[in-house]
């Protein structure tokens, strides 16, 4: 019997990237199911389009870089990027939106920087920001949640809208967003933002149809769905708790303090935690192992920074939600964070 002598680090993680990414997809299921319940089946078409585009783009890039065409597909990272982007955009966005976003994410953000493991920025969020900046109208056309919506679309009507930008009976997405009184409904965070600029207090804004129990109608359950999925990832040790906890703390602690200070102007921590892309961002986006900080201490700083930036941009910025911008800004700080949080090698410390 021979004892194999291996140099350090003596890692014992038996999971490869492909399996980890598969687990990420499983963990997205509860949130995605809830999202398709509240915002219609469009999300499935968006996912199909995104995954198809990402597979073609990934193969084209690997061939262009003189690598076997299927080598990069096996690790499933492109799949996760595509799925995350499809979840982030409005479910009735025209088909070319998701195609452009996915192409940019895979080709420019991932492969131009050197492929899997080399990208500085989170590909899904960089793609999202490209779309948000380029097509602000299409990217903010969120329908009201199905529980408060006046219209519900069948599978065929949804597909028709995604391809032709109109339902078969000629409604635009803009018209579908109107309630029974003809007033267009926005996302909860958007409603808060516009309400506050018009001089309403939060108590008045929360009376609106867009809000129920804790936060925005529909959105709160979707966020809880992603929370459940995220906890599954932590339990499976796919991600560590540092980033999600740091994110939520960085967002909710300042939100709590601000809420105490100005209860009618600053939404409380629960509204922040269950609105927009908070939970998706905390458990699935900020935890991207490539573009996040490396050490645990660094991860906490990285995540606190993202959470705090989300709070700042949501409260005072021009956009209602901020997870994508916050993640990209924090990605830029990662080399700096990593430099100053390098763990001390045993025996070499002070």
């Amino acid at each position, binding site marked *: 019997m021979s004892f194999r002598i291996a140099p350090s680090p003596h890692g014992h993680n038996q999971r490869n990237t492909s399996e980890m990414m598969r687990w990420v997809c499983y963990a997205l299921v509860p949130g995605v199911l809830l999202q398709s319940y509240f915002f219609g089946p469009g999300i499935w078409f968006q996912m199909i389009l995104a995954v198809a585009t990402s597979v073609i783009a990934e193969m084209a890039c690997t061939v262009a870089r003189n690598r076997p065409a299927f080598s990069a597909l096996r690790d499933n990272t492109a799949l996760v990027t595509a799925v995350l982007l499809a979840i982030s955009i409005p479910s009735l966005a025209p088909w070319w939106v998701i195609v452009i976003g996915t192409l940019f994410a895979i080709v*420019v953000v991932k492969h*131009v920087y050197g492929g899997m493991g080399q990208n500085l920025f989170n590909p899904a969020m960089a793609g999202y920001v490209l779309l948000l*900046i*380029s097509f602000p109208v299409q990217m903010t056309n969120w329908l009201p949640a199905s529980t408060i919506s006046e219209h519900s679309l069948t599978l065929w009507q949804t597909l028709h809208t995604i391809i032709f930008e109109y339902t078969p009976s000629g409604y635009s997405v803009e018209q579908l967003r109107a309630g029974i009184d003809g007033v267009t409904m926005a996302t909860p965070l958007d409603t808060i933002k516009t309400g506050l600029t018009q001089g309403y207090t939060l108590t008045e804004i929360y009376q609106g149809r867009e809000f129920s129990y804790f936060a925005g109608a529909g959105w709160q359950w979707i966020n809880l769905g992603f929370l459940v999925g995220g906890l599954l990832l932590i339990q499976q040790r796919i991600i560590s708790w540092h980033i999600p906890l740091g994110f939520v703390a960085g967002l909710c602690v300042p939100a709590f303090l601000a809420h105490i200070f100005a209860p009618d102007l600053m939404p409380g921590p629960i509204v922040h935690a269950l609105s927009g892309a908070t939970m998706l961002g905390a458990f699935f986006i900020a935890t991207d192992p490539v573009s996040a900080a490396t050490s645990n201490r660094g991860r906490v700083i990285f995540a606190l920074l993202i959470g705090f930036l989300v709070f700042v941009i949501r409260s005072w910025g021009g956009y209602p939600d901020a997870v994508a911008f916050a993640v990209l800004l924090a990605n830029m700080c990662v080399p700096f964070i990593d430099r100053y949080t390098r763990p001390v090698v045993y025996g070499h410390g002070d």
Partner: protein
Amino acid sequence: MNEYKNLTKQGLWDNNPALVQLLGLCPLLAVTASVTNAMGMGLATLFVLVGSNITVSLVRQFVPAEIRIPVFVMVIATFVTVVQLLMNAYVFQLYQSLGIFIPLIVTNCAIIGRAEAYASKNPWQRAAFDGLAMGVGFALVLMVLGAMREIIGNGTLFDGAELLLGEWAAQLRLELFTVNYPLLLAILPPGAFIGMGFIIALKNKIDAVRSARAEKKTVTRARVTA
């Protein structure tokens, strides 16, 4: 003659102010949203560069080394003021769309860089030619970037060229495709950074391929017998 050939090569390719020295990035990124703007900016910079190079070269014997930089800046500022007034008079709409970036030509490091590195050490004919080569190199990069951004962002080429070149140039406008929703990112500053990155990468790739080819050609036969 060889010196002039070398200057051309340096200015247009090997030592291009925008692609290699990475100088003057501020106007490069800010005003290249369309070819017309890029051309206007390129011509203005070209004029200032040639003028300042000639003047600096002519006065180089009289300027004490200790205060040469302020003198160069004054010379450049003079030419920028001339350009600014000329553009204000003859191409007013372009002047308005370029805005603050015309006076800011004075801060373009490519200009003072050439004054310091070349014009202050060489006779005026050569300095003028150096300014011309560098200015054309800079303007070409501006126009390539402007064309990229205009095509991707707007689907057109030479939109508004009549503002710079006169009425006949209105026919230059090409509508490559119509877009219902322009890709705003290409028009906005991030598009300039991304596009610039791609142009530099392309230039480096061409250089790498060329040097690899040159190496292959010069393989010398190894002596196998003593």
